[in-house]
C-alpha cells in the first residue's frame, strides 16, 4: 500500500470556488479492480462474474431466511407439510370424490398431492421473491450487493420446505405401491422448470413491488388465479387437444404435468405442452432479468 508521503498530483477543480489546481494523474500501474460508476445506460448486462463472487452471500441470505422462519415455532418443519396436505384433503373430497374428475388412473390423494407439492413451492417462492426487495429496503439503501440475490434467495429458500414435503410424497407413493421408473430422472428437470418460473415471475413482481407498493396486494389474487389456470385440481387432458399448446404457455402446466408423470409414470405430458412451457419460461426469465436490472439502477432511491 502506498504511504501518505507521496506527493499529491490530483486535480481539484472547484465549481465557482477558490482553488483551481491543475495536475495530471498517472496511468494506473496497480492491478486492483477498477469500478466505473456511470448513469444507467440503455443496455443491461448480467454481471455473472460479480454474482459468482457473491455466492456466499446467497447462501447466507437463504440460511437467514430459513433460520428466522423456524425460530420460535412450535411445529417448525411441520408447516412445510400442512399446507399441501390440507389442500390435498379438500381437493380429494370435492374434486375427487364428489366431482369425480378424471385422474388418469392415479388414486386421488396422490394425484393431487403430486401436483400440490411443486405448486406450493412455486407459490411460496413467488410471494417470497415479490417481497424480497421491499423487505430488505433498509439493507439495500446502505450496502451494495447485487440485488438479484434477493429474489434468487427466495427461490432457493423454498426448496427446504419442498424437500420436507417431498418426503411425504415418497411415502405416499410407496403406500399406493407406485413403482419408481426411469421417468423419475425427469423430476429434477421439472423442479428446475418450476424454479425458473418462480424466478422469472418473481423478478417482475419484485421490481414492480419496489416501485408500486400496491402490487403486493395483487399477488395473492394472481397466485390463486394461476392455481386454477394450472392442472393442479384437474388433469390437463381436460383441455381440448387443439388448445393444449396454448395452455402450455403457462409454464406451471408443464411443471405440474411433468411432475405427476415423473412420480407415477402415468400420463406422459404432451411434448407440445412442455415445449410451450419451456419457451414461455425462457421469455419470462429474460424479460424479467431485463426489467429487474433496469429498476435496480434506481431502486435505492425509491424503495
Amino acid at each position, binding site marked *: 500500500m502506498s504511504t501518505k508521503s507521496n506527493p499529491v498530483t490530483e486535480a*481539484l477543480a472547484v465549481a465557482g470556488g477558490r482553488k483551481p489546481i491543475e495536475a495530471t494523474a498517472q496511468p*494506473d500501474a496497480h492491478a486492483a479492480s477498477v469500478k466505473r460508476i456511470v448513469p444507467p445506460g440503455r443496455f443491461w448486462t448480467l454481471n455473472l462474474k460479480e454474482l459468482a463472487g457473491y455466492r456466499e452471500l446467497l447462501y447466507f441470505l437463504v440460511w437467514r431466511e430459513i433460520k428466522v422462519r423456524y425460530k420460535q415455532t412450535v411445529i417448525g418443519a411441520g408447516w412445510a407439510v400442512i399446507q399441501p396436505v390440507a389442500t390435498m384433503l379438500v381437493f380429494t373430497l370435492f374434486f375427487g370424490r364428489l366431482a369425480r374428475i378424471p385422474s388418469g388412473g392415479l388414486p386421488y390423494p396422490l394425484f393431487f398431492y403430486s401436483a400440490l407439492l411443486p405448486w406450493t413451492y412455486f407459490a411460496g417462492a413467488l410471494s417470497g421473491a415479490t417481497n424480497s426487495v421491499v423487505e430488505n429496503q433498509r439493507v439495500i439503501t446502505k450496502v*451494495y450487493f447485487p440485488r438479484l440475490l434477493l429474489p434468487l434467495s427466495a427461490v432457493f429458500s423454498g426448496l427446504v420446505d419442498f424437500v420436507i414435503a417431498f418426503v411425504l410424497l415418497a411415502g405416499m407413493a410407496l403406500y399406493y405401491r407406485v413403482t419408481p421408473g426411469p421417468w423419475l430422472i425427469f423430476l429434477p428437470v421439472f423442479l428446475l422448470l418450476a424454479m425458473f418460473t418462480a424466478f422469472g415471475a418473481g423478478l417482475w413482481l419484485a421490481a414492480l413491488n419496489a416501485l408500486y407498493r400496491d402490487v403486493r396486494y395483487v399477488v395473492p389474487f394472481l397466485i390463486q388465479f394461476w392455481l386454477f389456470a394450472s392442472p393442479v385440481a384437474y388433469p390437463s387432458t381436460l383441455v381440448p387437444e387443439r388448445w393444449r399448446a396454448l395452455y402450455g404457455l403457462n409454464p406451471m402446466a408443464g411443471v405440474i404435468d411433468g411432475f405427476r408423470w415423473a412420480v407415477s409414470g402415468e400420463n406422459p405430458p404432451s411434448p407440445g405442452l412442455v415445449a410451450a412451457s419451456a419457451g414461455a419460461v425462457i421469455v419470462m426469465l429474460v424479460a424479467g432479468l431485463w426489467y429487474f436490472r433496469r429498476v435496480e439502477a434506481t431502486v435505492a432511491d425509491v424503495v
Partner: protein
Amino acid sequence: MAVAAIRVEGLGKRYRLGDRERYIALRDVLARAVKAPFRRRSGTNGNGQAHIWALRGVNFAVAEGETIGIVGRNGAGKSTLLKILSGITLPSEGSAEVRGRVGSLLEVGTGFHPELTGRENFYFSGSIRGMKRREIDRKFDEIAAFSGVETFLDTPLKHYSTGMQLRLAFSVAAHLEPEVLLVDEVLAVGDLEFQKKCLGKMEEVTRGGRTVLFVSHNMGAIRRICTRGVWLDAGAVRWSGTAAECVDAYTASAEAAAETGGGIFDLRARKDRYGTGAVMLRELRLLNSEMQSRPSVEFGEPFTLVFDFECSRSSPSCFVGLTILSADGASVLGSHHYDTAEMRALLPGSRHTLSCRVDPNLLKPGRYSLQIGVLDYATWECVDLFHSAGDFTVEAGSGRFGRLADARPAYVQPVFEWKWN
C-alpha cells in the same frame, strides 16, 4: 507517483421530488398516464413532479492512501455522494471511478435481524459487506473482543441493549479490509466511550494506508484524522484543500449562521446534534471576566461558560460535560458539572441554566473549540451532544504571564510553584 484511488468527474444526481413518497400506487401511475396527453406541459416534467439536484458538477480526486474529510450542512449531498461511490445508487450524469475493493460504513447494524443470535448476525453482516466466510472466521475473535459482547454471542439480538447492538455492528464493519473505505457519520451513535473507540479504530485504518472518505460533523475528528477536506454545499464543491483549512472555512460560515452575537452560540436550530434528545441545549454563552459575552478571552483571564437547556422528557440522572479541544482536535481540558455542583433530577418542561467558571484559565493563546453535551450518568449515553458547539480564541493579551505565551508548546499552562534552592 500517487494513483487516484477515487476520481469523480462532473458527478450529478437528480431526484424527482416525491420519489420517496410512502406509497406509490400502480393505479395512480396508470391514472396519470391516461391523463398525461391532456395535460399542458409545465416547467416540471411530464409527470408533474419537480426535480432536485442533490449533486451537480462535482469534481475531485483522492490519491491512494489519502484520508479526505467531507463536511457540509445536512442536505448538502454528502450522503448521496457516498451512496454513489458505494454503488448503492447510480448517478444521473457524470462518472466516478473507484480503484480497489470498496467498503462502506453508512450505518451500523446493516442487515441485523433481531431473531438471530449475535454470532449469526455477525456472519450475515460480514457477508453482506463483502467479507468471505473464511475471512470472518479468521477475524472472529478479534471482532468479538473489540465489540465487548463475547459472552452474549449466542443470545438472540433482540435481547441486546442498543449499546451492545451498536458495538457489535460497528465491530463487524470496522474489521473490513477494503482498499477504499467510505464512512458516513456512523461514529455519531453510542456513548462517548464507544465513539472514542470508533475514532481510534478509524485512525488505525487510515494509518494502514487505505483510502478513506470520511463524512462527519465532528470537526475535531476530521482535523485529526484527515489530510484533506472537501466542503460540499448544496450539491457542489465549495472548498477543497487541507483538512484544517476546510474545517476552518466551514465552521466560520456555520458559526456565522449560528451566532447571534459575539460569544453567544444559539444551538436551538442546529442540526449537528447527537443524542436521544430528552434534554435540549438551547444556548451556550462565553463570558469574560466581566461577565460580558465575547468571542475571545485573554490568556490567563478567567472565563465563564453558561449553558441553557430545556428538558422535554424526564431525566433523573443527566449531567453536563464540557471538553475544550485545540485547533487540531486534541482534547485539552474537560470537566463535568457534578465535580462541584449537585446532580438534579430534571423534570419535563423545565428549563435550567448551568454555568461553569474556568478559573484559572490555563489555556495558551490560540483557537479552541467547545464540545459540550448532556449525558446520562448511569449509562453514559448521549442525550444531547455537540462535537463543536462553537469556537473561541484565547488572545495573547498583556497579562502578567508574559509576552511570549503563545510560543509555549503545551496547550495547558498551569501555574506551578517554581523555587530556587
